[in-house]
């Protein structure tokens, strides 16, 4: 008998088969990490540091755009010619859920700023605060799509956060390093997945029209 759940899960998993998601996300994480690291290396109060601080929001928005763009390019050039084109459903986000996420983000931001001002020592915890949500996202993907390497990425993200905090590397520098190291791990995982994918799926030779007309 056909296991429908398994087929559905395998279809969702096929999105991650080529490693493009990890490569794109990892690249963007390294970019954000580098940006934050450079920012901390600049002399405090300098004009460039101030400009970079203001431009951070723009960099984050650009990062979101870049992830989708890189995935699209990689899939169009590598995946679709080998294993076919597939467009996945975009999960609709209800206005209520969107509002709740916005409120949560705003609340966390409002909570974090006075907390860090009143107790600067808490900034040592920032790498954990960054790496844990990322670990949770990786865990969720691993669980939902059944991609085992995302369990490893989730564990690695948590370990990186812990290690940086334990080493006393906090603040923006700690966040930058956390993003950089997690991003690097993701790129490594993605490239490994891509190599395996390319070995398993050589480009098929063109053999005339496809589809119902092929009959």
């Amino acid at each position, binding site marked *: 008998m*056909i296991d*429908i759940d398994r*087929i*559905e899960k*395998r*279809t*969702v998993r*096929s999105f991650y088969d080529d490693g493009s998601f990890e490569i794109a996300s990892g690249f963007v994480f390294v970019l954000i990490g580098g940006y934050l690291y450079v920012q901390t290396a600049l002399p405090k109060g300098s004009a460039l540091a101030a400009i970079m601080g203001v431009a951070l929001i723009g960099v984050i928005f650009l990062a979101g755009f870049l992830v989708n763009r890189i995935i699209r390019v990689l899939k169009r050039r590598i995946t*679709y010619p080998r*294993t*076919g*084109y*597939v*467009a*996945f*459903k*975009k999960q609709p986000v209800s206005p209520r859920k969107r509002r709740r996420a916005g409120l949560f983000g705003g609340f966390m931001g409002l909570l974090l700023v006075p907390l860090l001002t009143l107790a600067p020592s808490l900034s040592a915890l920032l790498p954990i605060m960054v790496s844990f949500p990322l670990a949770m996202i990786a865990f969720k993907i691993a669980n939902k799509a059944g991609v085992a390497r995302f369990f490893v990425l989730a564990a690695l993200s948590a370990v990186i956060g812990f290690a940086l905090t334990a080493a006393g590397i906090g603040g923006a520098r700690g966040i930058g390093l956390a993003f950089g190291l997690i991003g690097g791990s993701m790129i490594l995982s993605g490239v490994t997945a891509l190599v395996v994918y390319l070995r398993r799926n050589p480009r*098929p030779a*063109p053999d005339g*029209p*496809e*589809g*119902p*007309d*092929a*009959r």
Partner: protein
Amino acid sequence: MPADLRSLAEIDRVIHEPARLALTAILSVVESADFLYLQRETGLTKGNLSSHLTKLEEAGYVAIEKTYRGRIPLTLVRLTDAGAAAYKAYRARFKKFLERT
């Protein structure tokens, strides 16, 4: 006829066939997929895949669009609203039957 058997007799035979069930299951989680993707995921031959897609299209469960990606012909398949509803009903009915037996 007992209720569980009647429920099984009323099952959608267009979807119930294993290859078509696999196709609708795949299409239920994607927006659209091309012929090559469906062929690789189901392991069907071109001829078999075409014939099953035609049956699903005749039942109004899938829509097939012929287009081009650059110069390469592309056959895009997606589940219609009727197809999605039929697949959902099939799943529910079959699950109920399995629970009863």
